[in-house]
């Protein structure tokens, strides 16, 4: 079998080699990212400053790098969010890309199996030392004492607020929206909001969006000092802390204090069209919502504010994550490695541009820069960096866990399962998964 395999592989390689012409010597690197495909709008634009949103900014950044480095050929692979099944298939096929965007919470999955390159050396060559990176970013990419990615931002859940509706609901004080300080108060305010405006207090994407339920759950359990993962093999969801959080969202759902049955696109459209008070979603929407707020004649015109999740229990805490550029393990030539170094250096230098999406910077220097401080809403959301917590580093398979737990939380919140049972089922399914990790 082995000999046959070699023979066929040899033949195929020979065919491939014969097929390729001998063009000018360009170093080719493959880069895989999510954030969407928007070539139609940004095509070959290199005007990073004019681009808006995650997709626009990352597209123009890569175009710009390409234009400034004509000796490097960057093949961009856009995958549907979050792209991990494809990456997994690629690694299993022995043909991963050179650089991949990865959530920091997911790094340990691949790193734990030895599928990622430690990047201390590469980052050092690019002139990026650990001291340049924010504590949150550093925590996110450091595994087993090595850097396994270049942190690129910190992301987290925020309350995006429609201040016009809040005023109508009588929930504005000194020009600032009044946010609740406890779960009971949240319900009182939500009911008041609904009576006065006739609209739901929350806009939520509940369909095909495991991430949003999980974000709420992790954040508020951690705020209560609850333990989510006892060790690398055991989850703990069916706790009083967990039940309290889910019950709150269940009550909101039962009393129809939220939009119902919306997926992410529908929820975004709803919030932009002024159909609800608060949209709890991530940092990534700040840019787009701010754009709406600045445009005249829109429901959101001049009526947008954004804050970290309010303190409802215990202490301030929010579940945060971040994006990073990682290098899957594969054979690379010196030229390819050098190209990767230049790319990372370029991306690090343009970290500010990326923060215009709404994400918090991964580099300390950007935090301190006047241009970052001049961006709208940044002082309101700045606490996120301080109160942000991640899951313990020993928790592997976080992306798969999010899918399993998200399913159970959806069941509990929408009422197809009792809260207690959903949490226990979530625990059982996640433990089963953790048990399979070699």
């Amino acid at each position, binding site marked *: 079998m082995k000999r046959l395999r070699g023979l066929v592989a040899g033949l195929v390689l020979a065919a491939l080699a014969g097929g390729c012409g001998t063009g000018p010597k360009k170093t080719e690197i*493959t880069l895989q990212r999510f954030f969407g*495909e928007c*070539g139609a709008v940004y095509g070959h634009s290199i005007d990073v400053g004019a681009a808006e949103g995650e997709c626009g900014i990352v597209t123009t950044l890569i175009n710009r790098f390409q234009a400034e480095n004509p000796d490097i050929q960057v093949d961009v692979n856009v995958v*549907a969010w979050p792209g991990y099944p494809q990456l997994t298939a690629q690694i299993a096929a022995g043909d991963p890309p050179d650089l991949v965007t990865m959530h920091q919470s997911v790094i340990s999955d691949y790193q734990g199996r030895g599928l990622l390159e430690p990047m201390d050396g590469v980052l050092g060559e690019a002139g990026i030392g650990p001291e340049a990176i924010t504590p949150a970013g550093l925590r996110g990419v450091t595994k087993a004492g090595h850097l396994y990615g270049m942190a690129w931002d910190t992301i987290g859940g925020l309350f995006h607020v429609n201040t016009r509706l809040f005023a109508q609901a009588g929930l504005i004080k000194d020009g600032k929206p009044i946010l609740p300080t406890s779960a009971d108060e949240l319900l009182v305010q939500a009911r008041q909001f609904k009576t006065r405006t006739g609209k739901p207090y929350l806009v939520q994407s509940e369909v095909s969006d495991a991430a949003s339920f999980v974000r709420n759950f992790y954040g508020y359990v951690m705020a209560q000092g609850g333990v989510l993962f006892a060790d690398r093999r055991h989850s703990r969801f069916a706790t009083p802390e967990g039940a309290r959080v889910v019950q709150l969202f269940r009550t909101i759902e039962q009393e129809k204090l939220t939009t119902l049955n919306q997926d*992410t*696109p529908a929820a975004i459209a709803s919030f932009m069209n002024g159909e609800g008070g608060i949209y709890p979603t991530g940092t990534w929407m700040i840019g787009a919502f701010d754009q709406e707020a600045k445009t005249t004649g829109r429901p959101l015109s001049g009526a947008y504010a954004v804050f970290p999740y309010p303190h409802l229990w215990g202490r301030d805490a929010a579940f945060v994550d971040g994006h990073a550029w990682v290098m899957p393990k594969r054979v690379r030539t010196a030229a390819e490695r050098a190209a990767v170094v230049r790319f990372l250096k370029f991306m690090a230098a343009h970290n500010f541009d990326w923060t215009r999406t709404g994400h918090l910077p991964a580099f300390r220097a950007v935090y301190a820069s006047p241009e970052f401080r001049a961006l709208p809403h940044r002082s309101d959301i700045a606490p996120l960096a301080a109160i942000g917590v991640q899951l313990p580093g020993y928790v592997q398979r976080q992306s798969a866990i999010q899918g399993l737990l998200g399913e159970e939380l959806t069941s509990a919140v929408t009422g197809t399962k009792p809260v207690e049972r959903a949490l226990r089922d979530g625990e059982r399914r996640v433990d089963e998964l953790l048990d399979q990790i070699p």
Partner: protein
Amino acid sequence: MNPRARLSPAALVAVTIGAAIMLAPLLWTILLSLKANSELMRDTASAFSGPYTLENYRAILVGSSVTHWLLNSLIVSLGTTAGVLILCSLAGYGFARLDFPFRRSLFVFVLLGLAIPEQAVILPRHQLFAWLHLHNSYPGLILPGLVAPFGVFFMTQYFRAIPVELDEAAMLDGASRFTLFWKVLLPLTRPAQATLGVFTFLGSWNDYWWPLISATRSARFTLTVGLASAQMNYAQTSGLGFLMAQAVFASLPILIVYIIFQKQIVAAMAGAAVR
């Protein structure tokens, strides 16, 4: 039941409603594709009235990979179709006309393949192709489609239906086995080739799971995988018109081919039932 008779009014109404259900989604898609994205973001009902624009289609020509994915789909589908027709004709002729050891058992062995669903082999096949470095290549996308036991069965039946006297006459004229196959019998199987060809082409064109895990680089994305990757959550909010324009644009070539060759395709499809 007179084939020339008119439909009864009740049946006509039912069929017309059915046709409306078939067409409404397509019309809705076309309307959405003709609207500015920003208008759709506020309310998709705006698609029912103007102003309409071709902006989304212009955007495709400027900076979308759809044309590239279309080309990949075409290469893969045509490659698969050609391969299946060749392999199945050869095998069908062999099983129908030639005598060789284990002919019957081998035929039964092939028939067993009819009962093997793709998902029983797709995971190991993914590993196999990884060892052979076949992922993200056209051969990697085409080869699995070539294993078509149904095609062999279908062609064998067709060859069997051709009178053996033809062979004998040709052999008397001194034709070789291959000449006989190539010059005399193969042309007679043209209707069967058309049926199998249309089948294979559509199957390959619509294949989703295998390209999803094998063609993971955008340079090798087929239409199904490429469009799936473009259907990002946020794209559905901010770029709905563009997304729909891509869908229309990607469907057009095959719809046009279908409309032009409708008669032949329908006849070819019908051929499958009469075996």
